[in-house]
């Protein structure tokens, strides 16, 4: 499976799975199973009320009862609040047949949301085990190598509320059946609040929650036969054959068009048919532009007729010497992709730039903007989606006094009003000459605008090595401006990222600069958190260590929700460069949810290792007999 499941509206859903919402094998003969399968994809809630109240959500099955699951891999990303598991949300037994789960491997992201709501029964592999009835449940040879993102702020989900890295909660026994576990292995990355137990707390059946049953960090006697070999590779290798393409089917997400030359790239830019901007593309060679680059996704003659809403699959190839001519950028935005649009109902597939294991690599990027653009980014000017994996090196973004009055300039994205940036980087210089308008400038993103329409927005596992020059507005090593205006219960974050700033230049009156964020404005509810993030400031230019300017909204009383939290290791070095001094660079001191009472773990400076999001294993898929589908067209009929 390679499915994206989008759940809309504010009503809860139950029994949602990457493969099966609910699996149940009933009366004899008990030969029901799910086996030797791969589940890939992710789950999205577009409404947080529904997300918080839905339950039984699993990467393979939402609910699994009375049957066998064997040799199954899941890298289906799940999220929710109640009974969420990377493999199974809720396991049940019954009166007829045993329930067996064995030889399973989870690499997806498991995200729990608390936010003051009931948050229980969530686990990396299994969320919750219902009362064991008269039949048995055995759970053997399971390996968790995914990511747990427990964003349940203020919830100690490792304790009373039953969340665990392997299993969340286990209900008291309901019958004479046995619950046995063997060879459970955890090699996960997790951002976890509270005590990160390997298994949650249940009543009874404690043997399966004993940490002695769970190996950590290395494989714990994981089987080398069956579905996986000693290197965790699949033994049952498959690959789908590509159907004989026709003009109607090429260019979609699963069958992208091929770009073999600079001319092919520019054909997309120059297409005014409203067709190519909706397609997806796969690079088939390195493209060296040397003055011949044309941007995609603009408005008007020569640059297509609207935002680009497809995907780019780099396929291991690079874009070299990308020289963006602002006169090719229509409208108020400029970048390699002028605007990355919402796919909406046109394709129902989210556009993406790069993939988890296939980054878009850009070596050499120059852009000089002088004509009043407002959203300026090396990769994307104005983004309504996001970037999964893009790496820009040798970047130079420059401009002068005519940059627009609301301008946002970022090494990767100018203004991001929806979407996130993952596993991406910018290395280069952003140099803006004296301007009366003082744009917001960020090493990765100029402005991240979180509001009630944006959805969660995050910058994760990314870095910038940047030299700012010239005189402009607020500058941040990662983010120029965080605008957090009344986003309801949305959450935004910067996690697992770093910035190295080799110069801030000068900053306009009324602005200041920060090692991570230049300016942070917040009004209304909503949370922003920062975790495992570091700034290294190699500059004597005036700046705050972490955040330059903190501007609460006019309704200060709305600050009762955690508005900003530093979680774990967030550090800046050296503080001597920061005028915020002991206040860890916060320009505004009166925030109240700073975990750790201001203590910063400076040992991170030497120990910090940039760790990109673990690439998902590739899926190769081939039918055993190699005949499908229709390799030989029987002819016209």
């Amino acid at each position, binding site marked *: 499976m390679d499915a994206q499941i989008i759940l809309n509206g504010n009503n809860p859903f139950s029994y949602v799975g990457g493969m099966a919402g609910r699996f149940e094998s009933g009366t004899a003969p008990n030969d029901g199973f799910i086996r030797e399968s791969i589940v890939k994809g992710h789950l999205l809630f577009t409404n947080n009320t529904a997300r918080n109240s839905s339950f039984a959500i699993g990467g393979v099955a939402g609910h699994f009862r009375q049957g066998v699951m064997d040799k199954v891999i899941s890298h289906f990303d799940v999220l929710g609040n109640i009974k969420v598991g990377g493999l199974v949300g809720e396991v049940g037994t019954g009166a007829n047949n045993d329930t067996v789960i064995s030889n399973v491997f989870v690499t997806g992201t498991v995200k729990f949301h608390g936010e003051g709501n009931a948050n229980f029964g969530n686990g990396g592999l299994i969320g919750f085990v219902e009362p064991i009835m008269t039949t048995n449940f055995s759970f053997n040879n399971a390996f968790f190598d995914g990511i747990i993102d427990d964003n349940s702020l203020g919830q100690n989900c490792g304790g009373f509320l039953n969340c665990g890295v392997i299993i969340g909660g286990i209900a008291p026994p309901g019958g004479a059946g046995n619950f046995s576990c063997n060879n459970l292995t955890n090699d996960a990355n997790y951002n976890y609040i509270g005590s990160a137990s390997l298994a949650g707390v249940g009543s009874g059946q404690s043997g399966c929650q004993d940490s002695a049953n769970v190996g950590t960090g290395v494989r714990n006697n994981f089987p080398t036969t069956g579905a996986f070999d000693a290197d965790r590779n699949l033994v049952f290798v498959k690959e789908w054959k590509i159907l004989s393409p026709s003009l109607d089917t090429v260019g979609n997400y699963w069958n992208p068009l091929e770009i073999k030359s600079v001319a092919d790239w520019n054909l997309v830019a120059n297409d005014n048919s409203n067709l190519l901007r909706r397609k997806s593309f796969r690079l088939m060679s390195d493209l060296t532009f040397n003055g011949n680059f044309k941007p995609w996704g603009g408005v008007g003659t020569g640059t297509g007729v609207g935002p680009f809403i497809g995907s780019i699959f780099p396929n291991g190839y690079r874009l070299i010497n990308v020289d963006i001519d602002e006169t090719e950028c229509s409208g108020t935005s400029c970048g390699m992709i002028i605007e990355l649009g919402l796919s909406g109902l046109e*394709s129902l597939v989210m556009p993406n730039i790069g993939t988890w294991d296939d980054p878009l690599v850009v070596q050499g990027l120059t852009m000089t903007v002088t004509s009043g653009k407002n959203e300026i980014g090396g990769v994307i000017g104005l983004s309504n989606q996001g970037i999964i994996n893009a790496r820009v090196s040798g970047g130079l973004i420059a401009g002068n006094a005519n940059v627009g009055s609301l301008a946002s300039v970022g090494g990767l994205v100018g203004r991001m009003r929806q979407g996130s940036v993952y596993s991406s980087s910018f290395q280069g210089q952003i140099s803006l000459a004296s301007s009366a308008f003082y744009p917001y400038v960020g090493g990765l993103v100029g402005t991240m605008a979180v509001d009630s329409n944006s959805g969660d927005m995050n910058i994760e596992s990314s870095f910038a090595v940047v030299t700012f020059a010239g005189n402009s507005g607020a500058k941040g090593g990662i983010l120029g401006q965080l605008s957090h205006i009344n986003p309801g219960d949305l959450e935004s974050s910067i996690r697992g990222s770093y910035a190295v700033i080799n110069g801030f230049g000068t900053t306009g009156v009324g602005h200041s600069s920060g090692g991570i964020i230049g300016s942070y404005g917040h009004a209304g509810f909503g949370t922003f958190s920062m975790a495992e993030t570091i700034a290294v400031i190699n500059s004597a230019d005036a700046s705050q260590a972490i955040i330059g300017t903190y501007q609460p909204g006019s309704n200060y009383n709305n600050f009762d929700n955690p508005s900003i939290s530093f979680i774990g290791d967030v550090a800046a070095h050296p503080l001597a460069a920061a005028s915020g001094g002991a206040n860890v660079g916060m320009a505004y001191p009166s925030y109240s949810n700073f975990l750790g009472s201001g203590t910063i773990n400076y040992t991170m400076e030497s120990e910090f290792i940039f760790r990109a999001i673990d690439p998902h294993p590739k899926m190769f898929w081939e039918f055993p007999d190699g005949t499908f589908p229709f390799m030989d067209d029987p002819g016209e009929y």
Partner: protein
Amino acid sequence: MFANLSGAKIENLTLRDFNLPAASTNTDSGVLAQTIISPTNSVELSKVKVFNSIITPGPNANNIGGLVGRVANGLQARRIRIDNLSIDGDNTNSDHVRFGALIGSHGSSQGRLELSEVKILNSDIEGASSIGGLIGRINNNDNLDHSIREITLTQNQVIGRFGVGGVIGQFQGASGQTQLEKVDFDSTVAPAGIIGSGGDVGGLVGRTESTNNRLIIKQSRVSSNIFVSGIGSIDQVGGLVGLYANGNIMDSLYQGTISITPTLVSHHIGGLAGRMGVSSNFGVKAENN
């Protein structure tokens, strides 16, 4: 073209530009034949094509097929092509049931259903329930083994309320087995190739409700988005099957986006199947998917 076929053998027939208005399509309507219901004489069809045709269901229409409205006898059909067909029903009209681009309804019969090498292209099928891109409903009460293989459905849109499948809307019956093999539903039609407004919606099959009537799915694929939006709960939506009571899904794949928008609490949403198995079933299976 025919009211009923019995013991017929038809080969190399092309039907173009048929228009069946609402006044003529209340029950059992199809471009080739209204019914195939002779109890003993099976029918063979080969290289039959239907192009550019429109069927407008009447207010009480049911059993509407692009080729045949209702089949209740043995049928062998191979190398059939349906291209640019419209069955323009109303998904809010509860009488608009059992619509399919090939066959509206295959009922209990004395003969097997054998379909192979069928192409359904550029067609729109809309009704209320038991709506399929190939067949609206199969009802097997006679312990028959039906075979449906090598079917391609390209750029079609299938719209219904309950029991909506890219290939077959609904399976009923108390016995027998139906095998779908090498079936490919590929659609990039916006907003989705398969659209529901109720429940029991799947990329291949909307609903199989009998635990004794097995559905086997082998080497099949759906590459299409599935879009379900409506008032009330939306239950049982899957990339291949919405409600899957009994059978085995092997070597098959769903690729696409499933988007669900209900107004009440909803259940059973899955990339392969919304719900696999019910409490009284035999062993439902999925392997090598």
